[in-house]
């Protein structure tokens, strides 16, 4: 899932303070799972903003909605009839959702209500952690199913570096050393022999470094 976290309310106030009518638009997809942008968060943000503007005496109308997904035209079309009433929309979807709304409603300011962070998992309730950097050429088969790109702070393909201690990364004692994890898993799998073969430089073209990416699946295009 794509993980995001709420922006500080002051930042959102700053984005919208020059408008009069604002729609807060949630997304019931990934950002709902990480409790950053679903219907519940739309309600919480809307009432916090109402309280804020009531205190400052500014007249501000705030509407609420949450769409099934903001990364699909089919769902964002649902805004078509109602969006005219608003001066701007604060989207609680990931950055992709924000941009897709902006693309479809090109004359309407669409503002981000969350900070989009990474592709990750729900490690435990309330804790989300990164697992994949979407490099476009997955090498998990040779690293025991643990990603050296997303989970080693130095993106090493031949780690561990010399900074690993007690299973923790040199960057921070809160971060597990990705290469310790890889080593432990390869051991469990009986694949430690994989470790000694140098892995050649990675092709980053399939990653963001090749420019914006696209997947085309002809059979689905009709």
């Amino acid at each position, binding site marked *: 899932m794509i993980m995001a976290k709420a922006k500080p309310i002051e930042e959102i106030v700053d984005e919208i303070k020059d408008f009069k009518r604002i729609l807060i638009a949630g997304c019931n997809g990934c950002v709902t799972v990480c409790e950053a942008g679903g219907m519940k968060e739309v309600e919480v943000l809307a009432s916090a903003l109402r309280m804020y503007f009531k205190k400052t005496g500014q007249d501000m109308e705030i509407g609420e909605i949450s769409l099934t997904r903001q990364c699909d035209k089919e769902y964002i079309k649902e805004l078509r009839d109602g969006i005219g009433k608003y001066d701007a929309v604060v989207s609680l979807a990931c950055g992709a959702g924000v941009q897709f709304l902006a693309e479809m409603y090109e004359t309407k300011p669409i503002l981000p209500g969350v900070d989009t962070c990474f592709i990750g998992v729900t490690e435990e309730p309330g804790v989300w952690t990164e697992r994949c950097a979407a490099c476009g050429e997955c090498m998990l088969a040779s690293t025991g199913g643990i990603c050296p790109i997303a989970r080693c*702070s*130095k*993106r*090493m*393909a*031949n*780690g*561990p*570096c*010399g*900074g*690993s*201690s*007690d*299973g923790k990364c*040199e*960057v*921070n004692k809160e971060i597990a*050393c990705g290469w*310790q994890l890889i*080593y*432990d898993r390869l051991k469990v799998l009986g694949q*430690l022999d994989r*470790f*000694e*073969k*140098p*892995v*050649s*430089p990675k092709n*980053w073209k399939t990653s963001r470094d090749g420019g914006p990416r696209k997947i085309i699946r002809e059979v689905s295009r009709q």
Partner: protein
Amino acid sequence: MSTTTPSKLQKILAAGHFGVTTECGPPRSCDGGVVEEKAKHVAGHVDAINVTDNQTAVVRMCSLASCIRLRIMGLEPVLQMVTRDRNRIGLQSDLLGAASFGINNVLCLTGDHQSFGDHPEAANVFDLDSTQLIQTVKLMRDDAKLLSGAELKTCPQMFIGAAENPFADPFDVRVSRLAKKVAAGAQFIQTQCIYNLDKFKKWMQGIVDRGLHEKVHILAGFTPMKGVGMAKYMKNRVPGMDVPDDIIKRLQGVPKEKQPDEGINICIEHIQELKEVKGVAGFHIMAIEWEEKVPEIVERAGLYPRPKVD
């Protein structure tokens, strides 16, 4: 191990002498005289001088320019290169530039993460890692090719080095990690600073058991302690550093003004002890901002005069 490059360091090691290297950190300014001063202190006592590459991710005068300065002084530099700050285009270009000035030693490193340095907000690169940089230098030197496959008319003649930290975790992987760097093309290794001799010897035994010491020259790394404060800092703050309590106790046992001397004594005793350990091919003395002490260490450790080779 035969010699393949014009590197003096390689020739000394190949002839079976203990090699002695040291390092100079360039200044956080453009005062090139600083590197020259540091180098003058150590010049006659070491075979080659490493120049660090933005060590601990702090911006400093670049390693390449500093190495050129040493070369002009007639000294033998080891160009340290970290992959943190430059992609494969920048790294290969710097290697070509270095070779054009007759720089014949390179130490391939991944580098400390930028969060430790003076620009923790920086974007990092890590396009290659240290092992892949080793492969890259080897490809340029032995196959006359860039990573792109493009042919090089003149190849850089580099003696290829790498670092290894016998004290990082997981310990079991440390010999394999070295084996991987050797497989990639590393010819000499400079280790992390050694304070825990028992653990180092255990690691070295693993190297010898696999015959790796016959494929790569291992230079044991030393940094003399200036006092208890430094020892405690190294123990608690520097990632992957193993400082046993008896070192701290020994330094605590002497008055403060004597602690630097005691640090030097410990360093010399440790070098003496490791001279007897099978597989140790030399010593890399990293006297951080204490370069003037290197000649004393080298002399008292019985590593002086340095051998002459042609």
